[in-house]
């Protein structure tokens, strides 16, 4: 009798919860037919987060609207044919949001400009593909994992690793259960997504200090004293020690160097070429003074390491500095369309200089 009573109570409780869930789900869908927007990212047990396949929206970045479309393969790119068709030279461009290109239409990103430049240069070649494999806020560790677990399946001939100064940051992947239920609910439940966005707003409000901590350099960066004042520049770099200022710490450079070594080994194993491209922070491009911290120290150390390892490397700092009377950046990291153009041209030049082209010539002759 007593047991039956407990069972009945449990059943009624479960039914009530289910009923409320259905009511809330229906209510949200009715009240907010356009809500919620799907997330551009979803959780990944492998990479922490990744593009949501099929995501499509008009996004806003620094006052610019642009079309953001993620392929079903989870790339900001057109579908990549696998296996690679014969006669195709495929370049995978790894990187973070700089590569992704916020505020720039896909065809205006340095990746697609590079594709066009190479196609123009390599007349007579059936196909040259440059695949945008950039994902917002990724670090080198995630890029290495992505390349190993997914990227090699695209059979790249060349991998360009676009490195930014905050790329040593580590990430914590979510537990598989968390990722699974979160992604399922985000995909299927309007109420969950709505509720989560509310909670997230609250969390952001509560963790304002934490968010600020990473980007606490922004007020000083916006003030601009670093352009002419060495002390202000030094303080700015120090205050960016949770973001691009990381590159001024030896242990962070060592982390990157360790991952680069792994990537070189992967390239040898999988038989693709590797090109390193170092993107500067705009502070390095626009400042007129130096700092005791050594303004170009990170680039110096990374280039030195790459050369020691025989890894072709392009430092974009001198390239962009030559145009520092023009608007190349939206903010401290992200390039304007003009910045994308300059970067793409420089990379094309570097590929030629580093003899990736000559290899292509050989390949071309072989194909003929």
């Amino acid at each position, binding site marked *: 009798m007593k047991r039956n009573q407990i069972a009945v109570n449990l059943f009624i409780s479960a039914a009530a919860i289910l009923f409320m869930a259905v009511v809330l789900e229906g209510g949200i869908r009715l009240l907010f037919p356009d809500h919620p927007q799907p997330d551009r990212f979803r959780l990944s047990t492998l990479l922490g987060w990744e593009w949501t396949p099929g995501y499509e929206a008009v996004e806003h970045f620094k006052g610019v609207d642009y079309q953001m479309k993620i392929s079903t393969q989870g790339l900001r790119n057109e579908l990549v044919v696998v296996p690679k068709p014969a006669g195709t030279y495929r370049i995978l461009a790894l990187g973070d949001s700089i590569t992704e290109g916020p505020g720039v239409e896909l065809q205006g990103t340095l990746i697609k400009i590079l594709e066009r430049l190479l196609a123009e240069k390599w007349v007579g070649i059936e196909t040259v593909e440059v695949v945008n494999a950039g994902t917002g806020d990724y670090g080198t560790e995630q890029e290495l994992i992505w390349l190993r677990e997914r990227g090699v399946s695209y059979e790249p001939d060349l991998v360009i690793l676009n490195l930014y100064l905050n790329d040593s940051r580590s990430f914590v992947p979510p537990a598989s259960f968390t990722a699974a239920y979160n992604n399922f609910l985000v995909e299927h439940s309007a109420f969950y997504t709505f509720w989560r966005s509310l909670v997230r707003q609250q969390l952001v409000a509560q963790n304002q200090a934490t968010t600020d901590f990473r980007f606490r350099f922004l007020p000083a960066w916006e003030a601009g004293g670093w352009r002419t004042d060495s002390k202000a520049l*030094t*303080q700015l770099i*120090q205050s960016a*020690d949770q973001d691009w200022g990381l590159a*001024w*710490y*030896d*242990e962070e*450079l*060592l982390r990157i160097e360790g991952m680069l070594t792994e990537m070189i080994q992967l390239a040898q194993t999988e038989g693709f070429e590797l090109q390193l491209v170092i993107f500067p922070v705009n502070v390095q491009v626009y400042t007129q003074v130096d700092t*005791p*911290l*050594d303004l170009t*120290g990170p680039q*110096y*150390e990374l280039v*030195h390491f790459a050369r020691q390892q025989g890894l072709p490397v392009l430092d974009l700092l001198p390239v962009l500095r030559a145009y520092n009377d023009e608007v190349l950046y939206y903010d401290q990291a992200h390039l304007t369309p003009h910045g994308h153009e300059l970067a793409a041209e420089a990379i094309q030049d570097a590929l030629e200089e580093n003899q990736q082209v000559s290899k292509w010539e050989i390949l071309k002759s072989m194909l003929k």
Partner: protein
Amino acid sequence: MFQSNTNRRGAKAGASGQARGGTTIAALALLALIMAGAAYFRLNGLGETAVTLEQLTLLRLAARSINIEMLPLAGYTVSGITNPPLVLYLLALPLRIQATLWSAFSFQVWLAVAAVPVLYLAAGQLFGRLAGLLAVFLLAFHPWAVAGNGTVLFFAVLVLAGFMLFLAGKPRTAYLGLAGFGLAALSQLQWEAWLLLPMAALLLLIFRRPGSFRPTLFGILIFILSYLPYLTFEQPRAFSDLLAGWHGLFSAGVLSGRDHLSSLSVVMAGLFAAALTYGVAIPLYWHRWQQIGWNELSLRLRGLFVLALWSVVPWLLSSLNPVKTYLLPALFLLLVVPVAGGLTYLHARLDGRTGRILSTLAVFLLGCLAFWLVETQLVGASVADGRSIREIDALIALSRERLAAYPDCGMVVLGVGNHADSSPIGLLDEFVYPREVRFVEQGRGLLLPEACVLYLLAGDDPAAEIWLQVNGRLLPGAWPFYQLPPRGEMTAGSEPLAVWRNGLELLDYQVEGTAAPGQQLILQYTWHVIQQPRPRQHFHFFNHFLNEAGEIVAQEDGPGVHTAYWRPGDVLVTRFYLNLPPDLPAGRYTIQTGVYTWPELRRVRLRRSEETTYKLSPPLVLDR
């Protein structure tokens, strides 16, 4: 037999209500006197009590919780203290009212005093007024109890009273609720108190009775809820402390009675053997002889049985420390119940007047003994190590005063310990918050910020003292504070000798002493910090004495000035004492220095170079 005695006493008392009222007032007066005595003995000389490093660290963490308004707390320390947050919450309470050591320590005193009436109520109800008074007498004056942590005593009494009243008295839900909360608090304050959990389960099983299910469930619920702050604190650390404590509990050192039993004096061993016999054997025999159920036992017998299991078994199992503060209330009760029984027996056998005189004399003698023990063992004992509460409170007050007078100055403490966690006065940093205090190990160097600084010379460092006298201004007061004017930014002319990639420049060095076998060289370096080290990043310095083949023949490493205190613009002076081997052959020797990460031991490279060391010049030539 006990039942009938109780009834008889009840009948007697009923016949003379006025006498009972008089006795109650006398007992309450005596209780008040004992409480006053307990407070007196604990507060008297409290200011002169030496504070241990662990106590200071806990106080520092508690103060930090108030300063940064963030809980849980202990995760912010590098000192390795793994106390759960509860103890820190409790310490933070009095600190919120008044941020002094006296406030925190006197709060513990008041908790100990509050334990007295609680124990009296429980013991009096089960074993009679006399036993209750004797038990609280011990709790108030026994040296172990006076020296013990008042917070632990309070929760120990709470949990004991709750369990005893529930198991031996009326099974009220509130009793188990109190016991559940007390047990959760106690086991977080003293990890070994976990041994009480199986005892509690066993006793609840033995004395199960109709209607005890819900109170038990309630007690368990309260216990779990009281553990939530600790579990919240442990969760991000993968419950490592919890698991370590659990493993530690079952290690040979803790759950082995060998060392403990052999360290007991004959008298103490005899006393506990008697208590064990009295508490365990007699109820067992009584039960067998009478062939009755547990629940039919008298209150007193059940109470004794509970006490015996409650105190003796965990006490025998555990051997880390013979004085178990968390078990003291139960042990005291075990000891006084036979004494009270004996006094009652004497009172009944002898004629009324003689009995009263004898029993009064016995209580008086017991009181004298307790007084003597407390006086000789605690109050009269000299402060051996560490600074006293009063001394540290005075230093805190003076530091606040000095910093208020010099609002632009930082503060550096030169003394024992190179970090707040290892300094005997490390809690200064949280007690003068938000002003910053940095610590430098005496004889190991100096820290010279760009801005003005107040130097507190809290240790023995003659070289630094001379330097401070020359370059600073001694401020009057009980503690030697020196005010150093702003050093200013480094001038353009001060070109570094070498720059390491962790943002440290070597500006200058000096080598003192004679390079000869068996001699000591003093290596003094001047560094300039140009980059703030990352949080939790630590660097140590190394000094190698190399022979012509480049082999290390002598070495001296150390943290110098602790990395946590490096600030951009600081000049650090580090001093190392390099002892040369007595069999050092003649030849040319070189000294090289550098830094490495701690504890990873990875050398830091020089900027724009693959080198990690800077070689001092000229090389030292050693003739024999």
